[in-house]
């Protein structure tokens, strides 16, 4: 039988082990020194921007660099390219000069005389039975606007965007730029960055309405965590209001008014927010005010109109209310004195917005207006009211006059 302290020690160790294993499993590949700038934040480049392609060529960048080959020897077009769609991969004839093979424009390819010039040296999967058949090399179809020439003119070296390619064997999408690395220049103050503008569409494709195109064939682009803590994780729908309220211009990079209106105008129900039979469930939710009803609905318009039609109001048309039973708990519990734990005064104090979704001012004034103002004089004002009512009366006397006659001496204490 283990002692409690020993058991606790085992438990702590087990938790630590699980966290350590999970950290290793979830962390994924970590950034290496040869990776481009920004890889510390994003070890993997975005597969949506840089869709992965099979690379059927064996090419060892490190080995070629050791032989004093400059990047421009194989990629001369990179110095003048202005579009992402430009082909920057070397033509096979560039290889022929050293490897001894011959890749004519037309006609069969002739292998070199030495092992260096053998087809299988470079072409993965080459088979002697079909010597002229090799797998085609496909350039990465980057979903970006990239102008190599502009960068070259600014004397920006290849490694500043692609990392230390000279240290790797085969270059992969891992050598493609990371957004955080781009921002090293593009996010500098205007006076320092020159023409390296920081708008999203400087690099990203432009989509609907001139905004950034986020829906691409490989998936949907979403902001990383380091960009204003706007990572669209599984919980983002619940916390996005604070991000948007603080920096709505960041949201506007990708989202237009329609994206906000889709939910916040309260016309079309989003099942992620209002699941299942929401019409039956919403009363409990409204009392909990979760999610916040006023984020999308105006209670006295949206809610009350429907409640009037359904006869779920204290006042309203006679036919709609013809079958009306009692909505709230019995009057002895909910309305009349003495107050019970379920009295409406308590419910109103807890969440007045829920009351406003059914009741109009007239429903409440019937009892809460002063006796001279057409009510029963049940005072609804809370503590501290007298300290605030004077300023409010001067700015807008209308609510006071709903319950108090203009000559009511009580108003004098607010004047």
């Amino acid at each position: 039988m283990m002692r409690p302290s020993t058991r606790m020690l085992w438990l702590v160790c087990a938790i630590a082990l699980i966290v350590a294993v999970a950290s290793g499993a979830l962390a994924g590949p970590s950034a290496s020194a040869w990776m481009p700038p920004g890889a510390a934040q994003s070890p993997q480049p975005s597969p949506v921007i840089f869709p992965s392609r099979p690379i059927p060529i064996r090419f060892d960048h490190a080995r070629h660099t050791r032989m004093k080959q400059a990047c421009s020897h194989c990629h001369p077009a990179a110095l003048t390219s202005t579009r992402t769609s430009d082909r920057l991969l070397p033509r096979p004839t560039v290889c022929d000069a050293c490897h001894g093979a011959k890749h004519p424009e037309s006609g069969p390819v002739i292998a070199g005389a030495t092992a260096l010039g053998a087809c299988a040296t470079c072409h993965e999967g080459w088979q002697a039975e079909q010597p002229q058949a090799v797998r085609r090399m496909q350039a990465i179809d980057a979903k970006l606007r990239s102008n190599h020439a502009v960068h070259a003119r600014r004397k920006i070296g290849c490694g500043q965007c692609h990392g230390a390619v000279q240290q790797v064997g085969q270059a992969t999408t891992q050598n493609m730029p990371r957004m955080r690395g781009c921002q090293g220049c593009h996010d500098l103050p205007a006076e320092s960055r020159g023409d390296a503008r920081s708008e999203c569409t400087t690099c990203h494709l432009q989509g609907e309405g001139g905004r950034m195109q986020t829906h691409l064939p490989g998936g949907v682009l979403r902001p990383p965590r380091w960009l204003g803590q706007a990572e669209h994780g599984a919980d983002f729908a619940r916390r996005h209001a604070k991000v948007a309220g603080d920096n709505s211009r960041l949201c506007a990079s990708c989202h237009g008014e329609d994206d906000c209106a889709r939910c916040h105008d309260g016309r079309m129900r989003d099942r992620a927010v209002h699941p299942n039979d929401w019409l039956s469930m919403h009363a409990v939710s409204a009392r909990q005010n979760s999610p916040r009803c006023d984020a999308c609905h105006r209670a006295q318009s949206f809610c009350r109109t429907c409640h009037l039609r359904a006869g779920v109001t204290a006042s309203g048309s006679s036919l709609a209310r013809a079958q009306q039973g009692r909505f709230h708990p019995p009057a002895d519990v909910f309305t009349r004195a003495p107050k019970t734990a379920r009295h409406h005064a308590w419910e109103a104090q807890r969440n007045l917005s829920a009351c406003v979704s059914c009741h109009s001012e007239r429903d409440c004034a019937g009892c809460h207006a002063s006796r001279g103002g057409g009510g029963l004089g049940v005072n609804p004002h809370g503590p501290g009211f007298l300290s605030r009512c004077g300023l409010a009366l001067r700015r807008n006397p209308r609510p006071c006059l709903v319950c108090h006659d203009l000559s009511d001496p009580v108003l004098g204490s607010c004047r």
Partner: protein
Amino acid sequence: MLASRGLCAARRKWAAGALLTAPLIACPAPSLAADVEVSSTTAAQGYSLRSPYGDPVLSRRRFMQTLGLVVRGIEGEDRKPGGPEITVRIRMRLDADFGLGWGEYHDWTPPNRFVPGLQQAPFDLMYGYVDMRRLAGGVLDVRLGRQYVIDPLGWWSFDGAMIRSQLPFKVALESYTGFEQRGGLALSTPRFERDGVWRGDRTGLEPSYYPEFLPSGYAPAWGGAVETWGTKHFNLRASYRKVWSSAPATTRMTALAAGEVPQAWTGMRTSTERLGASGNLYFDDLGDLRAGAVYDVYSSLFSSYYATLDLFPARWLTVGSDADRFVPTFDADSIFNWFSHYPMTTWTGRAELAMSRAVDASVSGGVRWVETSTDPEGDDSGGRSHLTDVIGRAGVRHRAGTGAAGASAMLERGERGHRQGIDLFANRLLQERWHVLARTSLYDWKDELRPDRSATSFGYVLGGGYRPGPLTQVMLEWEHNTNRLVGQRFRVMVWLQMMVTR
């Protein structure tokens, strides 16, 4: 007679709408080398809604269509990167319910089902503005027309002009003036007014009929903001907004004698006046602190404040905590501001796990408490009492390419009832043409104030769609929910999205 007056008013509104929007639509001259996008969304749905008392049963036959226009590059052929940019954006909406009975919106002869302000096919201009950016050497932005504002004070809309200027020292100033969008006015909805009063078009209604339904009128507004821009580790924003009401508002509305005309308060008066601020402090590999507050100047109280702390212990893990305190405040015309009420406070802790690019998950839990004075009509000398709800959420999602699948679960329990349930969902675009979706959910809720309205409900949604092109999609959805309250509830929905570009 009254009905015909109502019809005339509706015609006048349509005419005014046409007059307002025609120049905007006519703006892009064909000779300009501008990019034009015309888009449309159509959604039709049918379902029934039964009153908790069994009758009436409302038949919803909803048809909503929006039509949008974006014209970019009006500045001309010689546009330069970083130079001035002029864009026109317009979207109009028809939101009809053909299930409405004629008597619900036209016939107020007793006995009736008439609901003031209800329209069968309201038509509104969601937004329509000219956006001029980077004027005056790139430091000035101007926007004219109906537009949205999103700031710490919430989501709001007005008709008018906004000017924004990026000043040196990473500070931007924003100022706007115009009229708040209000229900009952031409091409407008009440969505953006502060709550607490019932307003709309009273044309044709007798003054003593529904005196609490206040006439709508123009609401002058102005506001501004100061914010930082281009800063690396923080962002601050402070906003101010004031709106006035101008239309007469009924005052005494109870104990009226037969035929007595209710008194009304006329003249310009405060509708809302609020000041909000929010800030964000961020460090790459450490975390993020966000906080904000809104002060209601009219009610002389902080109507909300919040703070959020996020820590990044690992690249795949974010742990955070949110605190939020909220007191409802209303339009200054409303009596509800002055009814005793207390804040609602929520505190949660959460963790978000980005397990891979494709899989993420979140879990959160916390408490929410609502407050009351021990004696609602007393002087609060007895101190406040609290009711606490326990809340929890969890979700996991797999997103790959053009598809997603996942599950989410929630729980909210307290003395006033509970809600708890789980949703499973999946959607995918197949061969870039066919869209399929499925969702199923099981929820249980209990209303302690009305136990007869408690239920356990199962529901599912099946949908399929087709994309003839990248900018066009048609979708059909079938929803079925079953529980003891409604028996079976069905909803059919058809979507059509289209876009044409030039």
